[in-house]
């Protein structure tokens, strides 16, 4: 019953009211709501797996979070080299070298030839350290300037006032009021010799210049449609408050619920009806006969369910229904509205909060894994509509040209959306950690770039952060929403380090937690929205020292919260700032030294217009230069800060931070488009940034920085920057402009993007019968390519292009007016184009008196047709951007025009309308079909867990986490290997309190792309999992398609 447990936990956390409501509402309401979540079009419930499992778990018996397990590895994931993991006891893995599956060949046979994949690799594993040593020595050569004692504490800190107190204390003079250049100032005391004037001037002029006005797409867009999701417009009340000084955000529950009741009346009311399934008596006059006062709900159901005419639901209201609705309205409306309303409100509030701040992707899901040579490496990022395929793309960087994408990427199919990808090279070994909503995985990346799985951990309550240790290979820390922080290492297994369901400094409702490492391998930072604490993993539990406090100590504003914390010493032991921590709030950026807690050494007001959730510190591009620190916000803004101050001097910013071009700045590189596609492109470019990675290619004459961004739509964009160190006082940057290659690249990308189908739109009541109107043209059948193309364009709701008419596209030249129908406006424009406007006017004046009626009629005709074409554009339901009109206005229009022809015939002809009603009906049927099956699955799941032996007794057993059930899954390299896991390899269950919880957390690594059936015969322990997998996938994916 773990699913239920976890589910309840979530439930309970979201507040007493919810739990109460649930208790009261019983299963029926649960179903209603479940339906509502799946179906309600306006809500567009993109399923994150968490939600689906949250809602479906108790009924479908899926168990909490089955839906996101790391799956198979399709990329050539060769095992071996476990000996590289010094001290990690992961025996047995090397022996199992996976067979080369069919997908492996697809992955990159070429690559093997190219790298010359050595057979001896598996035997010794000694190549890796060598290569790494080379790389390290290269890096070391670059930072030779750094003094030996990097741990020096600054001998004199900048003056700052220390006040204790809550946030936004009004009477504290904020000494950070000083501008950015304050840090550049040197006081005479610190350098009495007086060389104040020379240094800062050089520093002033540091600037990274982009090569192009904006980032360019690195890879073609993915084949899955992307939907920008909810906007404030969908959620907020649009009416204005006349007397408010500032408008406020008010959730518009009323509209949402009315829309829901209109569109999904059957779903809203049917469960209630089922509850009253027996006949019931409606109060009527005594004189009436029984047949008129007693309504059979069964009949009503039949009316509602089976033959609901979806073309226009109000067309065939039966007498029975009408009577029922009139009489039952008072009861029905209140119960439905009150139950649904409350839940809906909660849901809307949740959505709204997520719109304001989506912390799932904190840390970023794009990582750069350096390869054997400094110029080569791999980008690791999720792709796919659900962001559940981990992609390993080899990229080669050269200082002179754009990065080269090498061969097909390797892919690993996971079973949950990837939220965070962390990579780190420790002692010459590259490790990769991935966080999904409920699972975390760890891979080792060999020097050839092949990932080999090491570990999978399950986090029931939802993982919020994962970090890899910069000190010890393979050590990682995970934090969960329940406030538990766990450290995993190969030696000790899983250990709970810290647990506190409350926030650190003051009470804050957010369950976001974060953890990172510090300069001491046994000390971690644990953060939440209110502060950051340093916790000694070896000390007694619960104690620690606050590193950062949201309060007067850092002169925080009212309402300021921590959004991101990061250890800046993560560049390995060569890091220049091994003791520094970066802390970002929605207003400012702080740098805090571990040795001087609570007092920020630097504060900078970043002024970003969305949440800064991504930060990357890079090594200095050249010895002696400051380190670039990249900061990216969710909205796509990028800032680059120059961080200087090594050893005995305090960290400071060199020059003013600079902003880098965003993806939206690249819009000008794309060819001109018709408005609809333009809007689509714009939306795509504006998609939130969910990943950031940067690399410095091998040293060149001018340092170059390669910057990669991942957007929520799955696009990887790239930009190159070069350093202009000393431009001189008057030199102005020559404005970067697009090269022909860049524009060509953009148009190729755009072409591919436009081929991606739009998200299948949700069902909406047709507002009028456009088909009939279109049909009006049918009789006059004129054969030939022109009318045919014309009709096709109209049906698809796009602009008529020359190629539709079968005309050859003419050479590129400014659009000259084409001789159109004789209407005044186009004539006049034509004349104006040829500089003959005056003459035209004269002519017009002369001819005005003459023929009057004929041209006018023409005009009316063209006007009409233009309305028409615009209209067909509007009718296109797939256009997500145009808000569906309010029902109050549109429905009366709709009523008198039921579709004359049966929809099915029409559907085959019109691609845009295809599948819309049937899609919905299908979903509904799925749902109905599943209903009775809901309760009977958990049995299989528990059977499985009882067979999973808990073998390994870790020394830290007493610290085993109780709350966050993190289950460790053994390492396995091969799909086959994993199926054996429960019998052969140990599995540590860290839940003493619940020894027999059905763990769906078993790693099922299925070969990618295969159906579950196609997998190698799974072990007998996991039947239920496989049985539910397809179901869970459907549940998860469906909503993504547009609900």
């Amino acid at each position: 019953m773990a699913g239920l447990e976890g589910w309840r936990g979530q439930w309970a956390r979201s507040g007493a009211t919810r739990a109460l409501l649930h208790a009261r509402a019983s299963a029926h309401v649960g179903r209603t709501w479940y339906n509502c979540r799946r179906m309600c079009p306006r809500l567009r419930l993109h399923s994150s797996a968490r939600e689906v499992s949250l809602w479906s778990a108790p009924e479908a018996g899926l168990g909490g979070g089955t839906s996101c397990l790391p799956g198979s590895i399709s990329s050539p994931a060769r095992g071996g080299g476990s000996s590289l993991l010094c001290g990690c006891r992961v025996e047995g893995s090397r022996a199992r070298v996976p067979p080369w599956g069919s997908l492996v060949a697809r992955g990159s046979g070429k690559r093997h030839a190219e790298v010359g994949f050595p057979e001896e690799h598996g035997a010794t594993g000694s190549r890796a350290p060598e290569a790494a040593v080379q790389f390290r020595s290269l890096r070391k050569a670059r930072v030779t300037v750094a003094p030996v004692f990097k741990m020096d504490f600054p001998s004199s800190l900048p003056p700052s006032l220390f006040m204790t107190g809550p946030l936004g204390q009004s009477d504290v003079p904020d000494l950070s009021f000083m501008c950015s250049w304050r840090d550049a100032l040197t006081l005479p005391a610190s350098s009495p010799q007086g060389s104040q004037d020379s240094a800062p001037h050089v520093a002033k002029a540091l600037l990274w210049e982009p090569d192009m006005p904006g980032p360019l797409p690195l890879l073609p867009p993915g084949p899955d449609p992307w939907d920008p999701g909810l906007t404030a417009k969908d959620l907020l009340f649009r009416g204005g408050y006349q007397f408010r000084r500032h408008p406020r955000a008010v959730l518009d529950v009323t509209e949402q619920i009315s829309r829901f009741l209109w569109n999904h009346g059957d779903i809203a009311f049917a469960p209630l009806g089922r509850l009253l399934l027996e006949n019931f008596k409606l109060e009527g006059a005594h004189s009436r006969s029984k047949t008129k006062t007693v309504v059979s709900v069964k009949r009503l159901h039949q009316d509602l369910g089976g033959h609901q005419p979806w073309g226009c639901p109000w067309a065939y209201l039966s007498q029975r229904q009408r009577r029922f609705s009139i009489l039952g309205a008072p009861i029905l409306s209140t119960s439905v509205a009150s139950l649904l309303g409350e839940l809906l409100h909660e849901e809307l509030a949740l959505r709204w909060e997520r719109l304001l701040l989506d912390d799932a992707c904190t840390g970023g899901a794009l990582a750069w894994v350096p390869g054997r040579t400094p110029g080569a490496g791999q980008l690791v990022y999720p792709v796919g509509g659900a962001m559940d395929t981990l992609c390993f793309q080899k990229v080669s960087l050269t200082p002179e040209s754009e990065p080269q994408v090498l061969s097909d990427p390797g892919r690993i199919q996971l079973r949950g959306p990837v939220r965070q990808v962390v990579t780190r090279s420790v002692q010459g070994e590259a490790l990769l950690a991935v966080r999904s909503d409920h699972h975390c995985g760890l891979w080792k990346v060999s020097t050839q770039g092949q990932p080999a799985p090491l570990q999978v951990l399950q986090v029931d309550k939802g993982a919020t952060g994962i970090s890899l240790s910069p000190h010890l290979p393979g050590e990682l820390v995970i934090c969960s929403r329940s406030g538990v922080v766990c450290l995993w290492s190969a030696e000790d297994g899983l250990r709970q380090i810290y647990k506190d369901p409350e926030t650190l400094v003051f009470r804050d409702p957010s369950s976001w937690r974060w953890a990172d490492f510090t300069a001491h391998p046994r000390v971690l930072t644990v953060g939440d929205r209110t502060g950051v604490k340093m916790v000694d993993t070896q000390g007694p539990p619960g104690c620690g020292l606050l590193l950062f406090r949201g309060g007067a100590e850092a002169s925080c504003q009212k309402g300021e919260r921590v959004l991101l914390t990061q250890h800046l010493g993560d560049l390995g032991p060569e890091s220049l700032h091994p003791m520094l921590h970066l802390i970002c709030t929605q207003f400012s950026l702080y740098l805090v030294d571990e040795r001087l807690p609570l007092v920020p050494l630097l504060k900078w007001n970043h002024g970003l217009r969305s949440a800064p959730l991504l930060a990357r510190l890079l090594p200095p591009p050249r010895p002696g230069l400051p380190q670039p620190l990249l900061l990216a916000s969710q909205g796509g803004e990028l800032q680059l800060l120059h961080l200087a101050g090594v050893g005995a001097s305090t960290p400071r910013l060199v020059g003013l931070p600079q902003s880098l071009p965003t993806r939206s700045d690249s819009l000008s590189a794309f060819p001109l488009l018709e408005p609809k596609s333009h809007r689509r492109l714009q939306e795509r470019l504006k998609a939130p940034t969910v990943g950031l990675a940067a690399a410095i290619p091998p040293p060149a004459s001018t340092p170059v920085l390669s910057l990669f961004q991942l957007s929520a739509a799955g696009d990887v964009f790239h930009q190159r920057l070069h350093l202009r160190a000393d431009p001189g006082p008057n030199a102005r940057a020559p404005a970067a402009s697009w090269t022909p290659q860049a524009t060509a690249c953009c148009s190729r990308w755009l072409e591919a993007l436009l081929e991606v189908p739009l998200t299948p739109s949700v069902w909406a009541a047709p507002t009028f019968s456009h088909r009939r109107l279109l049909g009006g043209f049918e009789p006059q059948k004129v054969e030939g390519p022109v009318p045919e193309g014309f009709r096709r364009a109209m049906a698809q709701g796009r602009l008529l292009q020359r190629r539709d008419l079968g005309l050859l596209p003419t050479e590129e030249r400014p659009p000259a007016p084409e001789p159109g129908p004789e209407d005044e406006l186009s004539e006049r424009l034509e004349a104006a184009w040829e500089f003959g406007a005056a003459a035209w006017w004269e002519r017009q004046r002369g001819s005005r008196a003459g023929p009057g009626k004929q041209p006018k009629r023409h005009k009316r005709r063209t006007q009409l047709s233009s309305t028409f074409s615009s209209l067909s554009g509007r009718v296109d339901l797939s256009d997500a951007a145009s808000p569906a009109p309010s029902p109050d206005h549109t429905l009366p229009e709709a009523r008198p025009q039921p579709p004359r022809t049966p929809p099915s015939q029409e559907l085959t002809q019109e691609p845009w309308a295809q599948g819309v009603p049937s899609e919905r009906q299908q979903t509904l049927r799925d749902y109905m079909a599943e209903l009775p099956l809901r309760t009977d699955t958990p049995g299989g799941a528990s059977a499985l867990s009882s067979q999973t032996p808990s073998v390994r007794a870790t020394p830290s057993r007493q610290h085993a986490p109780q709350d966050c059930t993190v289950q460790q899954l053994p390492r396995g390299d091969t799909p086959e290997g994993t199926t054996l896991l429960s019998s052969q390899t140990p599995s540590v269950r860290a839940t003493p309190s619940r020894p027999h919880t059905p763990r769906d957390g078993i790693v099922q690594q299925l070969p990618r792309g295969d159906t579950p059936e196609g997998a190698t015969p799974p072990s007998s322990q996991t039947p239920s999992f496989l049985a539910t997998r397809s179901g869970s996938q459907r549940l998860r994916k469906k909503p993504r398609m547009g609900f």
Partner: protein
Amino acid sequence: MSDFSEELIRPTTEDEQGEPCVRSGSGMCFPWLQKHIESIASGGKQEKDFAQTTSACLNFIQEALLKHQWQRAAEYMHSYLQVLEDTDSNKRQGAPEIVWRLGSEILYYHPKSSVETFNTFADRMKNIGITNYLKISLQHALYLLHHGLLEDANRILTQAETWRYGEKSSSQEVLVNLIQAYKGLLQYYSWYKKKMELSKLDKDDYAYNTASQNMLNHSWKTSINLCTLIQIPGVWDPFVKSYIEMLEFYGDQDGAREVLNNYAYDEKFPSNPNAHVYLYNFLKREKAPREKLISVLKILYQIVPSHKLMLEFHRLLRKSDKEEHHKLGLEVLFGILDFAGCTKNITAWKYLAKYLKQTLMGSHLAWVQEEWNSRKSWWPSFHFSYFWAKSNWKDDKTLACEKALVAGLLLGKGCKYFRYISKQDHQALKKKMKQMKKSVKKYSIVNSGL
């Protein structure tokens, strides 16, 4: 007067005016909430054209600044100044600070700006509104200092120091103290120069007397300026340092000690490692007894075990007669090497190798074991991995040898690190290697456990 009363209301209305900051239900502030609301709000109070243009202008300035387009930013700034005449009193009050912040930023970076321009701008801005006078004065002085104009800076600070408005608020007081302290620092600076001159002069010179008289005057003024700020909790390293230097020069050792003790041990102050370092250095200069030095460094050790003074601390402890100090000496060495940044600190490794051997020879196995127990789970992979053996040997053979000895002593001769190093063939280190192998064989804690 009406202006002034508006100014006074300001702190209370601050919440109301905050358009960039609207709070959500959770108490969190979202600067970007306004953008969302604006995208849908149709009603409400419409912003006036003026407000729209000024906020657009502000955005342009910020954008230009972040793109380092100083010229463009200056052009927009020119237009933005009209915001100072906003009819909305809330905005008008907030404006000077924004104008100052952006303006000073532009003038600092603009290639054509000069000190004169900056002076004019700062003088103007100081007198628009009253709340910013002190802040602007301070920054102005810092700017001048930065350009080496000490006299001008001093003049600005003197002016600001005497400035008062209305009832003294605590924030005002802190700022005044800070201004005084900076003034004190300037005075210290000139004092320092005089001291340098004086050291060049002959004591019997006629000029010597007048110069020393001058210095005396200075110190008296400075001490007043500096000591008030130092009482307030905060990080005042440069001030404390200069103050102590002057006190010491005039022989006021007790005063200096008191100041340092207060700075280091006052509970209200943040735990600043430098406070302890200053105290330690002072005591060292004073030739304080070893016990005293040890007690100061002990506290520093608790705050920053990785501080470079810890090696000195170890030496002190080693020399001490007490057994517990000897034990602490071992702990300190282990403590330093725990930190990632110290892994290649050859001195620390040398000390540890030597001291470990010494301790084991002195049959204090329990001490070593106590330290080792908490580290044996991670030191092998942190320090003594195969990777490090190779890379240390390649980079620094002496370091590798020292580490190998420690590894051998702690992990026995079977450990990877020791094995790798001892297998290496190196002529110059042959003798050392032999010695190392011998000591490992004899003293390794793994052997003795058998």
